[in-house]
């Protein structure tokens, strides 16, 4: 029995060692780092390292660029998450319709952007959004709308990135929602039809409530992902124009790996972490409460 427990540990040990050493330990070290003034001088010689208490957090909270990046990130989340979920849900309902043809093709086609390399497709979208010869402006031009400087206008840069991110991501949630739709018993719809409910009434009173828990989970996960915006602005706008697409992680990267203020970068990272936990917990709470209210 003892050797068997030892064997069990041996199976779990490599993965646990990797996770402990290269994830959990650095997370704790990151927290410690955020209370120090670790910078370029400390990088050169550790004797220059000082304990700084909450100075980093105080400094970060007084930084206009931090608040700007927070605003930009929230703009991305608030625009992107509902748009992405709505598109996923719409496509899932269409795919699940008995009237739809070529389902395997459509499913694969709509999902394809999810597996592509973000940097590569961001390069494509930079071309599609080009002010002078991008297809988006060509399409708008055909409608009589003048060219928009998508990635060069501070008003439009973030919405353009949202459009790109939604294109890239909506397929993943769509697949999960299709599976959830398949799990709804047909009898519910049959009973509703007998009561004379139309398509919209069926969607409103059967589909949506039955999807509730899945929609909640998908929203929380998507939101957590959208808070981690980084590569899109890095490739498409470099944070510009006039800092309108600097996200919190972009700020963390610049502080940490361009200016080597690793202590301050850690403080930025933990601020984002705390914000993510607060927002997702709030959503879960609200979601569960509305489910309870619906079932009561």
């Amino acid at each position, binding site marked *: 029995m003892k050797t068997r427990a030892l064997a069990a540990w041996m199976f779990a040990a490599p993965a646990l060692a990797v996770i402990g050493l290269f994830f959990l330990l650095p997370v704790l070290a990151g927290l410690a780092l955020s209370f120090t003034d670790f910078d370029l001088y400390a990088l050169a010689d550790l004797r220059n390292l000082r304990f700084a208490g909450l100075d980093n957090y105080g400094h970060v909270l007084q930084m206009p660029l931090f608040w700007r990046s927070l605003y930009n990130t929230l703009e991305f989340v608030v625009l992107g998450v509902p748009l992405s979920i709505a598109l996923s849900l719409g496509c899932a309902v269409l795919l699940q319709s008995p009237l739809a043809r070529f389902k395997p093709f459509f499913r694969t086609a709509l999902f394809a952007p999810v597996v592509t390399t973000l940097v590569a497709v961001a390069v494509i979208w930079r071309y599609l959004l080009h002010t002078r010869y991008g297809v988006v402006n060509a399409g708008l031009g055909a409608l009589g709308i003048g060219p928009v400087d998508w990635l060069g206008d501070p008003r439009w840069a973030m919405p353009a990135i949202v459009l790109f991110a939604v294109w890239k991501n909506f397929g993943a949630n769509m697949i999960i929602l299709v*599976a959830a739709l398949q799990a709804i018993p047909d009898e519910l719809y049959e009973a509703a039809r007998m009561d004379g409910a139309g398509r919209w009434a069926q969607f409103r009173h059967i589909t949506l409530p039955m999807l509730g828990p899945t929609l909640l989970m998908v929203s929380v996960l998507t939101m957590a992902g959208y808070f981690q915006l980084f590569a899109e602005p890095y490739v498409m706008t470099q944070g510009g124009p006039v800092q309108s697409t600097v996200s919190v992680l972009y700020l963390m990267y610049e502080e940490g790996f361009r200016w080597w203020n690793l202590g301050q970068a850690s403080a930025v990272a933990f601020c984002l972490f705390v914000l993510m936990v607060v927002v997702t917990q709030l959503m879960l709470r609200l979601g569960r409460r509305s489910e309870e209210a619906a079932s009561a």
Partner: protein
Amino acid sequence: MNGKRSRDPVAIAVNGLLAVAALFALGPLLWMLSVSLMATGEASTYPPPLLPQAPTLQHYRDLFAQVGLGRYFVNSLVVASGVTVLSVLFNVMAGYAFAKLHFKGREPLFKALLAALVIPGQVAMMPLFLMLKGMGLVNSWAGVIVPGMAGIFGIFLVRQYARSVPDALIEAARIDGAGEARIFFQIVLPLLKPVVVTLALFGFLGSWNDFMWPLIVLTDGQLQTLPVALASLSREHVQDNELMMAGSVVTVLPVLVLFLLLQRHYMQGLLMGSVK
């Protein structure tokens, strides 16, 4: 097909909307391919051309002969393969242990791992960089591979799947005198084949597409992976749309093909992961 069905306006609307959505999803990818075959400067005209006038592979030749994209391709291949092999091995072993083997503290440990899933990886990046620097792994393939050698989500997937392996099978092998390692490799691993494929696919795609960590840890141009190299190329060659599209094709094509070949496994993994 059924004449009555195809004249149904709702059916037309459903299929029409799906076609529009598919065009939205695939259009940029198809166009990337088309522009990559255009002559230099052809894409920078208005209105943007849909198809190349005289398709050419010139940009692909330039990418490999002059820009040295082949090197980055190999770098990506080495890193993604390394991550895939090691993470599959470690995650499957651990997932099996959490599902089928008994050791003290198994359940609380697993719960703690699941709780740690909420921590965004970026929080760990600054100390991880310093740690790897101390170990001499910054600017090496190992520096990119090492943090990806195991993952909580992977362990979770395997555990879900491995719970369906009958205990009687394992017990019978033990009575026959088989050692734990032999039971794992000869009996359990073949049964876990579907989840192994899923995990390998996730591992390879995740590592191939990863950007932020390779960007941080590979400071030397020669060792960079494709996404990192492509990002810096796109800053240098802002005007060379055709060349950049060819670079994007080279980056995206391997993962897209891999996905198309194994998409059933990918979707299954996605669904298993969503029922936490």
